[in-house]
């Protein structure tokens, strides 16, 4: 109760969308053997912050994201959004809700709906807007994102970069408090990635939504983030937090600055150790 009242008092001053992850543990037992994916992981994410999660493959980052989104339960610990309990003691699984929107690794625009129908889907099923109004707003928002000529195209007909951009629009039309991105630019070439980063930064500067972003790409992490949380290999724990004090708006030239290089080296040091551990663990499992 105390937490809740505090949040109410401060919500006017602070931006919405503060995530508080406390001592979260997640244990899977698909084969009767317990696998600990996340172990006593805690992090605080302020409202309107871009928080980047970096760690080796298969370390449990996605598990953490799924817990926040409400796709599955957590075993121990609690997750609060703006002081309200999402999941925790007595409530293992968070309710899925449009205040926490996920952008998926492989892209999950419905292939049977046009870009415009995809974006209009959220507000119209939530009955926030009438279907016609939702379509209008979707068209407008897609046009703002530079997709005005592709409203009637199906996701299969446009490039992966455009599809991903449309997916972010589909999330933002619902005015979420938190945007959860799970390696959204993983399969893209470096040039497309650059354009996607600029468009995401532009979107962030406009909306100020809290961003929880999982990635393997260290340069991406520093370029986009306010904070880079480096997590350990499985089970996932917070290892180190690096603050990125590069002023916004940032442009691609930022990436060649001395400050950027230093931060990159710092993050790389922390991640490399974990990557080696993960690699060795993988070897043992196979041998």
């Amino acid at each position, binding site marked *: 109760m105390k937490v809740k009242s505090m949040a109410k008092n401060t919500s006017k001053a602070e931006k919405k969308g503060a995530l508080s992850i406390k001592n979260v543990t997640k244990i899977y037992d698909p084969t009767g053997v317990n696998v600990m994916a996340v172990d006593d992981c805690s992090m605080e994410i302020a409202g309107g912050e871009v928080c980047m999660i970096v760690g080796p493959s298969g370390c449990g980052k996605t598990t953490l994201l799924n817990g926040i*989104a*409400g*796709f599955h339960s957590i075993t121990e610990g609690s997750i609060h959004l703006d002081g309200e309990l999402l999941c925790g003691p007595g409530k293992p699984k968070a309710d*899925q*809700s*449009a205040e*926490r*929107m*996920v952008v*998926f690794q*492989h892209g*999950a*625009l*419905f*292939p*049977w*709906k*046009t870009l415009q129908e995809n974006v209009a*889907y*959220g507000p119209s*099923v*939530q009955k926030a807007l009438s279907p016609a109004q939702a379509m209008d707003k979707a068209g407008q928002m897609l046009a703002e994102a530079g997709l005005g000529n592709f409203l009637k195209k*199906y996701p*299969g*007909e446009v490039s992966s970069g455009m599809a991903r951009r449309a997916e972010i629009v*589909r999330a933002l039309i*619902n005015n979420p408090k938190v945007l959860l991105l799970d390696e959204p630019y993983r399969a893209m070439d470096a040039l497309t990635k650059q354009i996607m980063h600029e468009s995401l930064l532009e979107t962030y500067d406009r909306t100020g939504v809290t961003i929880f972003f999982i990635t393997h790409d260290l340069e991406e992490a520093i370029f986009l983030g306010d904070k880079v949380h480096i997590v350990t290999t499985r089970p996932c724990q917070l290892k180190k937090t690096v603050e990125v004090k590069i002023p916004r708006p940032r442009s691609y030239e930022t990436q060649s600055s001395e400050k950027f290089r230093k931060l990159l080296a710092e993050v790389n040091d922390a991640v490399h150790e974990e990557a080696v551990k993960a690699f060795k663990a993988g070897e043992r499992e196979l041998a």
Partner: protein
Amino acid sequence: MNTSADSNKVAPEGFNLFLYRTKKKFSGPDPYLTIAGVFLWLFVYWVLCEGLQVWRFTKLPGPVAISKDWFSMTPFQGISIFTQEYYDHIYVSCQRILIAFGIATGLGVPLGLFMGWSRSIRDYIFPIIELLRPIPILAWVPLSILLLPGFEGPVIFLATLASFFVTTLNAMLGVDSIDEEYFRAAGCLGSSRWDIFKNVVVPGALPFIFTGLQISIGVAWFSLVAAEMVSGDLGLGYLIVDAYMNNVTVPMVIAMITLGFIGYFSSACVRALGDRLMAWHVKELAQQGR
């Protein structure tokens, strides 16, 4: 520059697109090979039956004998494109297929979708379906004659049964084939369970459903003819058996070829309907060069 892409040229649509595709199709070897293939098979058939009169093949009517009767105003063996009887048989069979296919689709698609969508519905129904499915259609003949009155009932029942199993199973597998992330995305976006059914389950399963329907209409024809042979008064299957019993082989073969053509046409209709309903799927495949 001839080789540069004409960026300001508008892509053809509708009838012009059809013309463009037809022209493109006939500029390659494929259609000519098809035509040559058909004539080759007809020629072999003719050589076996009429040209060389190979042993046992003499009992069969050759292509010349068949076409003489088929297109004759006064067919020697009773069936041609000018006799009312021929169309009666076709009409009756088609009508039965429409009813059987309609019932099988109307029941099978929703049942399959619900089975794919809800674990508990699947647990109730799937074992029974899997138990009944392997029973051959001909094994159902006595039961259906005992159970249903008249000629129509058993025949339609048998044709329905076979295609019902195919349709149900494919609709269910279609739901299974949908990526979990679409359900999660729909959940995130604030869908109710019913919204997810309408917007994810049904469209996501459509490609599988239509693959199933194409198989199912083939199976419907096949079991219809089997049923008409056993218990019928009219229809192409009945015509084949009746002709055989009366030792007139030309109508028998005419009925077989007719079945082939109608079956081909009915599958093409199902495919066309599928392409119409799944523009997104067709366009996606086209992007992959298929």
